[in-house]
């Protein structure tokens, strides 16, 4: 399954593959998507996501969407990256073929990977086979659970049309999450992947995840001082070194004048 070169993109342009695209550049790490996911799914059609010891010590429970936070770089060149992760609805989902009972399956019509709770025997094999750790065992129900891509929302005709998207997409205050068909080149998600360099996690595992992430972006202005023709203007530069030392060393000098 491991190969140095990622497998070629499938020519599946015709089939639908719904997915989430998560923008790490705008995600603020508020955990709203995780909380609404829990709230929607625990009160949804498929039964609650069980919590154990909810008001006691060592509380633990089933969540479909967890957010980690990482520090990238070293002070002072450091960025904090919040990283929400739910099932990637992989195109070549490794969790599907391993399931002995066929409880885990990938829907042909839209590519959503689901678990049939009535068939799952709780062997946990799929959770070992998922490279992303996106499956959660419900010890109370004894079955494996995971993000459903809100399949009970996105086709619900009783909801207003603009609300037929996953709960986490609606909830995100930073609009870091978008939802759509990544195989439709004109969809919002496909455009975002194209324009903002969307990428997949762990391409080397060959799982070919459908969810994509958009990287942090920085705007660099390449300015050559010789080309600046503005006259009699003052530029104020606070050097990083001085700010670090707590001094306010301000150099001001004129350009071109």
């Amino acid at each position, binding site marked *: *399954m491991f190969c140095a070169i990622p497998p070629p993109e499938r020519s599946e342009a015709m089939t639908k593959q719904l997915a989430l695209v998560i923008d790490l550049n705008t995600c603020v790490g508020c955990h709203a998507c995780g909380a609404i996911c829990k709230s929607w799914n625990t009160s949804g059609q498929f039964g609650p996501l069980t919590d154990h010891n909810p008001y006691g010590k060592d509380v633990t429970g089933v969540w479909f969407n967890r957010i980690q936070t*990482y520090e990238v*770089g070293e002070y002072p060149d450091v960025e904090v990256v919040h990283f929400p992760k739910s099932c990637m609805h992989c195109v070549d989902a490794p969790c599907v073929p391993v399931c*002995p009972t066929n409880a885990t399956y990938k829907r042909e019509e839209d590519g959503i990977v689901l678990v049939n709770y009535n068939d799952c025997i709780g062997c946990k094999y799929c959770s070992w086979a998922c490279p992303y750790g996106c499956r959660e065992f419900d010890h109370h129900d004894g079955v494996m659970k995971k993000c459903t891509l809100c399949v009970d929302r996105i086709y619900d005709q009783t909801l207003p049309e603009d609300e037929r998207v996953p709960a986490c997409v609606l909830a995100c205050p930073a609009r870091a999450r978008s939802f759509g068909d990544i195989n439709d080149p004109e969809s919002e998600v496909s455009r975002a992947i194209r324009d903002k360099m969307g990428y997949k996690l762990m391409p080397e595992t060959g799982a070919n995840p459908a969810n994509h992430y958009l990287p942090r972006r920085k705007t660099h202005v390449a300015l050559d001082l010789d080309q600046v023709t503005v006259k009699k203007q003052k530029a104020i530069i606070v050097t990083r070194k001085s700010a670090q030392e707590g001094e306010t060393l301000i150099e001001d000098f004129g350009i071109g004048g």
Partner: protein
Amino acid sequence: MRPEYSLILLTVLAGAGQGVFVFLATGDMSGFSKGSRVPPMTTITGLGVALALTLAGMAASFFHLTHKARGIKAINKWRFSWLSREVVLLPIFVGGMVVYGLLYFIGAHPVIIQATGLAGIVVVLALFISTAMIYGHLSFIREWGTAYTPVNFTLTGLISGWVFGAAVYQMALAPVGATLFNLRLFFVLAIVGLVVKLLYYRRNCGLYSPTTIQTALGINHPKIRLMETGSAYPTYNTEEYHYTALKEKRGILKGVSIIALYLVPMAAMAWDYMAILSGGLAILAPVAAISAMAGAFVERWVFFVEGNHAQNHYYGNFPAKIRPNPILQSGKKDAPLPPGV
């Protein structure tokens, strides 16, 4: 990975049961070819031991399932899932053993018996491979995803079963010809098994993983540190895939398993072999059986806990000793790595 005791019991006990069967089948074949067949009752007793071991393992694995009544559905995907194949092959093996025993019981023609034994050995090998490939095909658990896994499962099962079979032969005073042949085979199995195990442990010491925190997050920066797991308490992600008990002692446990699984049985069987040749008392096979069983349990426990799942990268639980491949890393500048910070 967290060790699943029901699975350790299944793989060790059923593996030994399979080993006993292969022992009995080859024993009778060699006796048959030498014209001094093993008495049917000896083989039937041995089959009883094999059946008891296998059924005990199957019973243990049953406890692994939360929905036991649906267990039958696990045969649905035999074309894709190694677990499903194991579930299909286990009853075939058990049924085959019963048939094999019945053939002895009714005194079937020896050729039919040998043919059935041979077919049984094929089923046993397929079963060993199915059981091991459940773990062996998870290539991103680098400790498991290797050809060593099926080879090791097969050899461990054969070795631990072999000593049980030898104990049965000893107690039933089976003919010397068959016993000696099987004892010689034991040394082949044990030495190959030991070499494979040492190579396997050596491989796991200097393991490379193509998955790094960089590919896990898609952020191409050498310094990435986990700040928050997003949960104040342990979660499925931190409990199921990461196990720290006896972390410092695992090297010692490996040594214990090598002594108990290979060295002690080899010494005991060597004693027995010499005793048979010199007309002395060959009584150490049961000792070897107990020792090999204990060794196999420790070995399997270590196998489970040593697996490092790729998702541990997200939780800062991936050991630093598993490095990215330096050859791939050296070409990093040109490689199309995901864009990042």
